[in-house]
């Protein structure tokens, strides 16, 4: 027994020594790697500066046809990506790496420097402007309407929403804030706001059909997109209630990039490329909404 424990002790020592060695080697090789990586990144930046090309990571969504989605070949497609590719062509000093992202992840990633430009019809708000840099040039224009199920003929305007349930998608969204403000100003209408997470999910659309929700506050392009893909499930009512602009969003200290991209957007608007892209992706909107 004693011998056994003695043996155990030497083995313990041996194992400890071995582990220390392994850790040491791992640590050293790790340092080697980091040094190498450092050199590599230095090389990259040096290359970048000698060629004068800076790499820029551009992100938009992947689930929002026709703004930003993935086509059947797995390519990022839609207005946002087409516009970004055109901006990239104009700017020789920048090379865009275009990636898809989740909405929940996008602004955080801009803040943490994982991406440089976020684009997904992002609207200005005081809280966002405190944290992010917005482009001066407008990227997308959306007209917001009162939207109801296609079979609903009772609702003609916001005043008709007595004791109604409306879906604001999620609490931090522009549309939710619209309902919040409206219901505060019109307490007599007793509007109940829910946040279903995604008012355009199957369940959200079904809720509008069977009357468990009454109305949405939605933009022309999104409503037309739903009609295009699902058939006539929705309709817009009356005149647009608001016009909202989408902007590119940057990290606070990325003014140089912002200026350059603003210049490029201006150029694309002047030479007609922007309009061509807008027509390419959004020309169906008026047609869809009028034939409701």
């Amino acid at each position, binding site marked *: 027994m004693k011998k056994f424990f003695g*043996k155990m002790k030497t083995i313990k020592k041996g194992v400890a020594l071995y582990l220390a060695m392994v850790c040491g080697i791992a640590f050293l090789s790790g340092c080697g790697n980091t040094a190498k990586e450092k050199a590599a*990144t230095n090389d990259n930046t040096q290359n970048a500066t000698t060629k004068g090309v800076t790499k820029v990571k551009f992100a938009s969504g992947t*689930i929002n046809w026709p703004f930003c989605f*993935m086509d059947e070949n*797995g390519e990022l497609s839609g207005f946002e990506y087409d516009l970004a590719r055109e901006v990239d062509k104009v700017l020789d000093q920048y090379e865009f790496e275009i990636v898809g992202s*989740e909405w929940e992840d996008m602004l955080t990633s801009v803040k*943490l420097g994982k991406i440089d430009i976020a684009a997904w019809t992002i609207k200005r708000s005081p809280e966002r402007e405190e944290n992010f840099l917005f482009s001066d040039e407008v990227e997308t224009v959306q007209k917001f309407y009162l939207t109801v199920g296609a079979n609903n003929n009772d609702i003609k305007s916001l005043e008709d929403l007595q004791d109604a349930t409306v879906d604001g998608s999620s609490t931090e969204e522009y549309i939710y804030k619209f309902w919040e403000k409206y219901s505060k100003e019109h307490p007599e209408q007793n509007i109940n706001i829910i946040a279903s997470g995604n008012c355009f999910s199957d369940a959200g659309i079904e809720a509008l059909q069977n009357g468990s929700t009454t109305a949405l506050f939605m933009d022309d392009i999104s409503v037309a997109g739903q009609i295009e893909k*699902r*058939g006539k499930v929705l309709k817009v009512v009356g005149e647009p209630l608001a016009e909202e602009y989408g902007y590119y969003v940057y990290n606070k200290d990325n003014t140089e990039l912002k200026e350059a991209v603003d210049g490029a957007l201006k150029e694309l608007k002047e030479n007609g490329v922007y309009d061509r892209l807008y027509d390419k992706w959004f020309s169906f909107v008026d047609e869809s909404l009028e034939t409701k």
Partner: protein
Amino acid sequence: MSSYFTWEGFFAAIPLLLEYLPVTLRVTFISLVVATIIAVFVALIRVRRVPVLNMVCKCYLHIMRGLPYVVILLLVYYYLPFLVRKIFAVDINRWDKLVFAVIAFILHEGAYIGEILRAAVESVPKVQSEAAYSVGMSEMQTFFRIVLPQSVKVAIPAYGSNLVELFQNTTITFMIGAMDLIGRANTVGGATMHYIEPYLVVAVVYVIISILIELLFKFLDSKYKFGASTV
């Protein structure tokens, strides 16, 4: 109203999604291999009760087993680059999202598999080692001839179900918008406004592959008779 579910949509989604199945499998496989290597060291340290390192491993195990997958993933994705930049002055912020997912899985699985291996090794009664020493076997011989074969038998089922769990947990990569099977299903849903079909395809794929993994480990378990035949 268009119908929520169509078989056309279901079959149309299959090839689009299967293209991304290798991504999910690769994430699972790489995570498993690296996590197992880490787990071997963790188990070794725990079984041998190596001073200091044993405490370090204990801390690692307790933390990892106390953290939900999603939290580890978010911490690794958002916080690790910051940490690495602070310590090594290297910018890993822009690595592919899947790399962060793999790192998160490795950290988590390293702890779980480590415990599986430790439990397996410790399940072999000490008297067997003592008996081996008494007939003059060396420590190495004892471990490789007596302890290891029996502990492998114990570890196989747990390791298998752990792999199934890891494979299924790869779905949380959608939290950070990584593009694998579930990520692609989201995008197919977004492009067609039909979410049910792609999600059903994902469900079918996950069920089939999980069953295959289970069968594989059942087969391995039945083939691997050592140490069990006499019990």
